[in-house]
Every structure is written in structure tokens, then in C-alpha cells.
């Protein structure tokens, strides 16, 4: 690799770029899937990537091996429209039970000194034993509550985002961004905005066995923005109260969809400003279907800012401002889960 960085200019030049240190613990299940994401991520936000994974079992690499092993590689992409390659260094660190405690010190010694350290924690609980030690010394933790199936694990992530120490971001919130943008856009029109105050019913449908965290956060976000107060729960129906009266929130499972994703949201308002609209989004689609039943009947295809995972991660890395909307939404989401 040293020779690569000294390569000539022009078509065969390798440019080494880094804006951050990216520490990524991987489990065996997601390792392959995240390999693609890490390549995309390094292209969008060059970094020295620390890929930390459990050593494969086999002769000489069993759980008893007391040493870490490491190798250096590079994630490169061709420059757009110009000769040469842009590369991010990648350090692959493999650990065993016996060497797990050495991981934090190994990572610390290899960090680029003047760049932020970002911990990308995308594997579900339980965390490897060394992660807590490492997490105390990083500048940003990015987690993904969507990978958690247990409500307690979701809540744990949301709780940690509010604690002092390294700031923490939840990718579920980033995934919700296009939903929030589209909903906000629908209610920009004065007629629709007036109906917001008299919303009576919100139904959110999801695939998979349990609601993904985006479902909880969407309900929490609408409740916090519209100042709904949670009063109780009856099965999959939550009763809120707005300034104009009761609001029912229903979370329902779509048996036909196995992937754990937010599928559609249906909002209804009564009174002087009737409204009935359903937004349907199919996985990874860049558009969503907006089905208006009231005050007019029409179905329109609206742009939906779906982002690949790497783009969502970069968005969270670059987010600089505090995120009170997320804190408010997750607080209500937690209350719904615990009700």
C-alpha cells in the first residue's frame, strides 16, 4: 500500500483521502451485507475504516488465541470523469474471546490523530465486550434501532442518544426523514394545514413480525409536533388527546410483507376541515403514492427522498445541530411501547 500512495499521477494515481476514523464492529450475519455499504460509505465520506470482526474459527484461530490479527487494505473508487482512484484505508481487525480486551488499545493506536472518531454500531445487541470501552472515547456513535427486534433494545438506543458523553444518532431517524419531508409537504397547503389541528385517526402499517423503530418514531413525531397527549392503550390502538379531541393511533401488521419496514401511513381528520390521505411507500422506491380520499379524490406519485444506507449514515455524520425533534419523538415512542 505504501507503493500505492507513491504511485504516479494520471490514470494510475491513487489518492488517499480521509475525513474521519470510522470504527465498525461487524457480526458474522451482517458482515457481507455491510461490506457493500462500507465501500459506498468510503466513496461518499472517505475515512480510515476499522472493520472489527470476530476471527473465523479454525486451526490456530480459535477462541483461545490471545492475539489480535490485523491487515490493511484499501477501499478505492474511480474518480468521476477524471483519471486516477480515490482510496480510503481499511484496517481489518480480528479478535477472539481471549484477545477481545485488546481491541480498544489497538484501535486507539491506529487512529488518524486529528480526525473525528465515529463508531458505527449496526449490529443488534448484545454488543461485544470491548465496545463499551471504545465508545467512551469516540466523537460520535451512530446506531440503528431498526436492527433491534426487542423493544427494550430500541429504548436503550433512544435512551443513549439523550445521555451526555459522545453524541449518538439513530439511523432509524434518518430513514424517517423522507416520510417526515413528504408529510410536511402535504400539509404546506393552507387547506391541508388547517386539517392538522383536527386529525382524529392515524394508522401505520408495517411488514415483519414486529413494528420497526421507524413506525414508533413516526407516531411519536406526529404526536410531538401536533402536541398530542398519550392517554392509554388498548392492544394495537393508542388513545391520544389533541386540543380538539381524541386521536387514535393504530399500528397494524401487513401479513403479506416479511421485511420489517414502514409501509404506509393513513391520516384522517374530521370537523370543519375533513381530510383523508394515505401515503404508501415501497421498499427503496424513490417515489411514494399519495392517495387522497378527502377533501378531493386523487392519487399522485410524489418524490420520496429514499437514501441508501451509506447516504443516510453520511447525513448523520454531517448533521451538526442538536436534534430536539428526535428526542421528543423517541420520548413519546417509548411511552407508547411501555403503555
Amino acid at each position, binding site marked *: 500500500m505504501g507503493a500505492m500512495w507513491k504511485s504516479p499521477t494520471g490514470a494510475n494515481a491513487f*489518492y*488517499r*483521502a480521509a*475525513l474521519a476514523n470510522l470504527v465498525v464492529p461487524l457480526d458474522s450475519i451482517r458482515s457481507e451485507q455491510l461490506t457493500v455499504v462500507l465501500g459506498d460509505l*468510503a*466513496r461518499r*465520506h*472517505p475515512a480510515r475504516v476499522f472493520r472489527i470482526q470476530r476471527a473465523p474459527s479454525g486451526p490456530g484461530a480459535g477462541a483461545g488465541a490471545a492475539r489480535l490479527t490485523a491487515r490493511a487494505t484499501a477501499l478505492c473508487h474511480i*474518480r*468521476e*470523469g*477524471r483519471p486516477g482512484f*480515490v482510496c*480510503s484505508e481499511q484496517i481489518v481487525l480480528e479478535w477472539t474471546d481471549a484477545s477481545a480486551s485488546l481491541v480498544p488499545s489497538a484501535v486507539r493506536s491506529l487512529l488518524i490523530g486529528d480526525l473525528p472518531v465515529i463508531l458505527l454500531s449496526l449490529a443488534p445487541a448484545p454488543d461485544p465486550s470491548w465496545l463499551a470501552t471504545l465508545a467512551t472515547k469516540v466523537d460520535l456513535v451512530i446506531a440503528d434501532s431498526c436492527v433491534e427486534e426487542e423493544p427494550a433494545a430500541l429504548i436503550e438506543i433512544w435512551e443513549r442518544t439523550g445521555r451526555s458523553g459522545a453524541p449518538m444518532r439513530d439511523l432509524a431517524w434518518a430513514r424517517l*426523514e423522507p416520510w*417526515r*419531508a413528504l*408529510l*410536511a409537504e402535504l*400539509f*404546506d397547503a393552507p387547506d391541508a*394545514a*388547517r386539517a*392538522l*389541528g*383536527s386529525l382524529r385517526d392515524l394508522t401505520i402499517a408495517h411488514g415483519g413480525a414486529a413494528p420497526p423503530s421507524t413506525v414508533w418514531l413516526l407516531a411519536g413525531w*406526529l404526536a410531538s*409536533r*401536533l*402536541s*398530542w397527549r398519550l392517554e392509554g392503550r388498548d392492544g394495537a390502538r393508542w388513545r391520544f388527546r*389533541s*386540543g*380538539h379531541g381524541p386521536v387514535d393511533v393504530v399500528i397494524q401488521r401487513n401479513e403479506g410483507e416479511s421485511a420489517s419496514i414502514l409501509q404506509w401511513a393513513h391520516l384522517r381528520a374530521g370537523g370543519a376541515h375533513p381530510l383523508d390521505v394515505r401515503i404508501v411507500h415501497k421498499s427503496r422506491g*424513490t417515489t411514494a403514492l399519495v392517495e387522497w380520499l378527502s377533501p378531493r379524490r386523487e392519487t399522485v406519485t410524489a*418524490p420520496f*427522498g429514499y437514501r441508501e444506507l451509506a447516504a443516510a449514515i453520511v447525513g448523520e455524520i454531517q*448533521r451538526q445541530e442538536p*436534534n*430536539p*425533534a428526535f428526542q421528543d419523538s423517541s420520548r413519546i415512542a417509548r411511552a407508547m411501547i411501555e403503555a
Partner: protein
Amino acid sequence: MTPDAATELETAVNPLREGSVTLRAAEPCTFVVFGASGDLTHRKLLPALLKLSRERLLHPQTAVVGFARRKTTDEEFRAELAQLAGERGVPEAEWRRFAASLFYRAGDFENADDYRALTALLETLERERATPGNRIYYMAAPPDAFPAIFTNLGRSGLARPPKPEAWTRVVVEKPFGRDLGSARALNALIHTCFEERQVFRIDHYLGKETVQNILVLRLANGIFEPLWNNRYVDHLQITVAETVGVEARAGYYEKAGVLRDMLQNHMLQLLALTAMEPPARFEADSVRDEKAKVLRAMEPLSPELVAARTVRGQYGAGSVAGEPVVGYREEPGVNPDSTVETCLAVKLEVDNWRWAGVPFYLRSGKRLAKRATEIAIVFRRPPYSLFRSAGCGPIESNVLRLRIQPDEGISMSFGTKAPGQTLRIQPVRMDFNYLTAFGAEPPEAYERLLLDCNLGDSTLFAREDEVELAWERVDAIARGWAETGKTPLVTYPAGTWGPREADDLIERDGRRWYRV
């Protein structure tokens, strides 16, 4: 929510917008490109719109309508761009999506009937695409067509927004006039149908990331602005060097020369951004007020000062990057006796509290040794040469270089002790490069500027008074050259750094041009 709060909701801003990140997402609109068959449209505008579309920064309902004399159909217009999209590896689906928004209307700039046909097409597109009627008219046509276009935009009603909630804007390409009189006449013509807030005079240099970074470097870092004045800065150099000759633009260049082609717009804009006071707010008029103040603080040169502080040259035959090239007068379309300058060097002064006594040396030319645009801020040397007694020679000044293109970035040179047993001070560079820091090249200037225009942000566009102030300064130089005859046109070999006289201009002051 209390009943009061609910009532409030009926009139307040959309509460779902609260706390959301403001994305630079464009509003639905129709771009109408006058002069759509020209080089600029195919080389810059349409590729920039395609890129914005691919990055989903254009609203999906956006349409692009080309308008020009050449008879072409929508399909042929799309096919021309399809080739370009293919060369750039644009995925088929993305190309199809963009192509569906491309339209063409053949028309004569002077024929009122053709504007009626254009109106009908725009109304149809706006109805079909359910856009509110927002329109951007892009003047990519030759300047001599502007009077006809603006007159007809006014008469046909196209200049007015079709609905109360819609807007219309006009983007005007350089050259914005060829002297102060013609610039004023053009401003007056534009204002017969557009208000100043609707006018976006484009100078693509201002859309370059590195140019925008001038303000960020100065005003978002605590260490530079305190030094940004005549107490610490010895002088500034602005170099805009091209290796190309006139190419296919001889007709235009014979009337313009480097003075009008470069100094009046790009170079004076770079100077103004570098020298301006911090604006009260980062918004269009605050920034442009400060730039205009800089231009006002540069008195137009008297004929005597023009003779003393300017150099003009014209390239002769030579070789550029190892290839032999002909001289300017041998270029196709150029008058064999042409006295048009292809290179200039000028020393300017900004007479205000911050910059009094600090010279600004500007140079630009065609067929120079290297393509490079750079601003060098050269700092004063230390007041006392401590290391002279240890046998060290004169210490180099610290130089902060803002590289606008290519290899966009910033470098700072400073003296350091060279390794060894003797005390030897050697200048070294700290280098920031966009590519190696961010792993990506900055976006094309036109992408940024087209998006800004759509969003109604005119910060990076020149205002009427800036353009006129710049012309006053440039006209003074042109007048000096024409009237005194004391600034002879000197020939320089192509592929060099211009005439010897340009070096003399700065060396007379005990300084030198920094290598770019």
C-alpha cells in the same frame, strides 16, 4: 394541544416543518434557454441540469425548454444530449427521466409570433406537469440578440409570472455589455420587464467551490481575518492563466480582449471577494454591498497611471505543453493586424482603511505556460531578521495561496529549519486539497448557480451596481491604452508566462510573481 393552540395552528406555519433540516431542494419550474443550440447550452447548462436531476436536487416536475433559431424537434434535441449522457455513463433510467423533461421550440428571437407559441408551450407544460408557473429564462444567446429577446419577453407577457404565487427570473450570461455605456443600456433594457431582484447576472467563477471558500476561509476561521489587512499583508496576486488560444471564439474575442473577457468580471469579482469587509449577514445584498464598496474604493486609473501600471501583450507563435501553436494573428477568424490584447498585467489599489498601501497585482492571459487560477496573499516579512547573524539569507514571505482551479485547494508556505547541523531555513508548504481531503471534486459551478437561481438566492450573482462599477474601472484602462499610446502591445511567445514587461511591472516594486 389547547383549543387556543389548535386555532393558532390554522394560521401558523406548518408544525411538521419545525425541526426539519432545510434541504436545498429546488422548486418546480421551467427553465427556458434562449440560444439552446449553442455551445454553452450543450457544454455547460444541460449537463449541469442533468447532474442536478440525477442528484434529485431538481424538482421532479421541472421542465427545460430550449429556444433557438435552428429547426430541431424535441427528439433531436434530446438525442444531442443523449450522446453526452452516454459519454458520462449516466444510467439509462436516469437519462430517460431527465429526457422526458426536455423540450425544444424553434423560433426567431425577433418574431413576436414565436413568443406566442412559446407561451402556449409553457402553459401546456405547466398544466400537464402541475407546476405553479415558475419560470427561469436563461440568456445563452449572443448579446446582440438580447434587445430582441427582452423586448419580446416584455411584450408577450412572458416576463410576468403567470399566477400570483409564481415567479419569473432571468439569468444573463457574460459579456454584460462591452463598456459602461452598453452595460447601462442593457440594465435599462432588462429593467423594462424585470425588477433587479429577478435578474441573475451569472459569473461562473462565483459558483466555484473555492471562490465561495474565500469567505469561509476568512470568516469561519479565527486565525486569518485578524491578519487580513495592510498591517500584515504585503501584497496580493491574482492570476487567471489559460493555455488555450481563442479557439472558436475569435469573433467575440476580437471585440473583447482579455481586458473585457477576464478583468471586468472574473478577476474583479475575485478581488472584491478577497478584499471585502465582512458582511453583516450572509445573504445576497449584504455580501454584494461589501463587494461594491471594494470596487468603489478602487479609483479608475488616470491615463498616466494606466501607462505606469498596466502591461498588455499578444501571443505569438510558440509551443504549449510540448505542442507547437500559432500566434494570435494566425488564428482562424482573427484579423492578421489585430491589436487585441490576449494578456494583461495590472497593478491596482484599494483605497480604504484596510488595504491602503497594499498593491493588488493581477495578470491573465491566453496561451500561457499553464492553466491555473490562483489568489496569492503574500504576508509581510518579520520586522527583524533574527537568523541573519547565523548565516541565513533573506527569509521568504509567508504566502497563502487559494487555488481556484485546477487542483482546488489552499496552501500556506512558511519557513522551517532544514534538517542538518547548520541553521538553514527553507520554505515548505502546508497543503489542503479538496480531492485528498473530501475524496471528491467540488461540483461544477453551473450546478450551484442554477440551483441558487431556482431558490432565489442571488448571493453568487453580480448586481447592477457591481457590474457598472467594474466597467468604469475597465473603461478607464481601455481609454488610457487608446489615448496615450504609452502602453504598447508587446508580443510574447505562446507557452510562456507572458511578456517580460509583466515581470518588470512587479519587479519594479521589489516583488515577483509567484509560480503557479
